[in-house]
């Protein structure tokens, strides 16, 4: 189980780092989402991996699992969910206002040439 969980976290983090470094907003958002999944699983594993154990004190318990990381993960999930919603809206507004989904700041100059090359139609919000 340790190997499975560790490699899942590793693959998700690696993929997310690659995606976050891309130059388009959609890939960055997917990367950030993947990163938050990886972090959630990671935090969960920090309370040690146990199966079928009770998180609260009960009589006749054989052992306990740590409840604190679960509470931390819950908070982290709520925050990252809200943040993902925000950044999606932000990326969408940026795309509608500038007509480009590039993440670099000089996108306005870049997209003029690229949209001509690729023959893209600009969104209506631009005009």
């Amino acid at each position: 189980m340790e190997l499975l969980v560790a490699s899942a976290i590793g693959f998700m983090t690696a993929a997310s780092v690659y995606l976050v470094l891309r130059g388009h907003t959609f890939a960055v958002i997917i990367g950030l989402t993947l990163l938050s999944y990886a972090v959630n699983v990671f935090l969960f594993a920090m309370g040690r991996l146990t199966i079928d154990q009770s998180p609260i004190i009960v009589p006749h318990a054989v052992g306990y699992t740590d409840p604190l990381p679960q509470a931390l993960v819950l908070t982290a999930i709520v925050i990252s969910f809200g943040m993902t919603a925000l950044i999606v809206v932000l990326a969408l507004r940026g795309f509608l206002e500038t007509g480009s989904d590039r993440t670099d700041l000089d996108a306005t100059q870049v997209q003029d040439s690229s949209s001509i090359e690729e023959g893209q139609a600009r969104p209506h919000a631009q005009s």
Partner: protein
Amino acid sequence: MNHWIIVPAILPALVAAFLILTLRHHLVRQRIVSVTATLLLLAVAAGLFAMAIQGEPVAYRLGDWPAPYGIVLVLDRLSATMLLLTAVLALVVVIFVIDRWDTRGRYFHILFQFQLLGINGAFLTGDLFNLFVFFEVMLIASYGLMLHGGGAARLKAGFQYVAINLVASALFLIAVGLIYAVTGTLNLADLALKVPEVAPSGQAILKTGALLLFLVFAIKAALVPLHWWLPATYSTTSAPAAALFMIMTKVGAYAILRVFGLVFGADAGPLAMAAAPILLPAALVTLLAGSIGLVGSRTLSELAAYAVIASMGTLLIAVGLFDQAGVTAALYYLVHSTLAGAALFLLAGLIAERRGQSSDQLVPAPAITGETLLSSMFFAAAVAMVGLPPLAGFLGKVMILQAVAASSWWPAVWAVILGTSLLMTLGFARAGSTLFWASEPARIGQKPVSPARLPTAAVALLLFLAAAWTVGAGPLARILSATATQALDRIVYITAVLGPDAAMAGR
């Protein structure tokens, strides 16, 4: 227990909720409530400061759960100083904004109050996970404030700002997870007790966690090479938002001082001074990079943003010493640079507004009305920011130079601080002379812009406070010196949070 300690966090939260639920469509009433709440916050912060400078740190246990199991807030001299500074800055920003800047977008006051909640919470919290939560509250509000008013450039810069902070949040969680996995606690006082006693097998993981945490705080504090989000963000956002953000970089510096002075400080056994070998050189490069950027700036707000990076570099050099003299100098410089930087951003906003089309670009443009007052305020803010005599920036730099004299780094620090002061003087002189002297004659038929009294008064208030900070340097330095001693003393902190028995065990 003293319930006033939680008021700086509760008050803005309630006010923000009240504003959005009942006064969403009444801007005038929003302004009245927001200003009143900020005044109240200032009064509470001043009261807490008066309480904190009398003695020992005080812990506030939420729900009266005993530490380290419950959540604690801790008020000590350091956090009280930061709270007071936040409240003063907030008051100035809200005075600036009620003229008409808050009409440029919606919900300014609501976001503003939520931002105060996050900042105050981050200064008060006594455990790492709540530091994360308050960082997030602060950042979520700052995303809204940063984008306030909209515009393509702001949206583009805003996406970067949000993305970098989301990555930072993920790193923060990983760091918290690593530290929890080794020590089994996130309470700062409890961590300060347990970190020195960690078994050798856990030390590598703990150190990784500590350095990841440092990385997160370094992003917030705009330490090179993690500074590049700052110029884009601060120079594209609105002037009042940028002025309020001055305190956000200081939150990063505060967190570095708190966590790496207390938990991973001099007494942390094998992990002692985990951040010190990186912090000082990085701060030197930050100062250099900031001043070089300042000379090459194309707009006044960009210039102000690079001045912020340079001032963070100066500040973190002093923090990086992690000794009493260094932290005293850092705190003195921190308050001053926050006031001066905020004044500079607000001035950039005022100047851009008056210049109309050419905005705050550093190019010759028609002369602006009310030039004498604006230019003299710009001169004062520039002198303060560069650190020339007679204002407090100079005293702060002298204190830093003196504090560093005992360290082996002193030749490099002296060379960089003195050299960059020259560079910054050059940058500000170029900007000022382009803005105010290289002006073209006014265009015929150009309407003079009516001078905005309240915003000008807000900037004047900031400059007055910066001057007062200079005049009171002697007594203030003594107060801050006691603050620095307390901030670096883990025993008093542990006593306040966990009781004297635990502190005896950690001695």
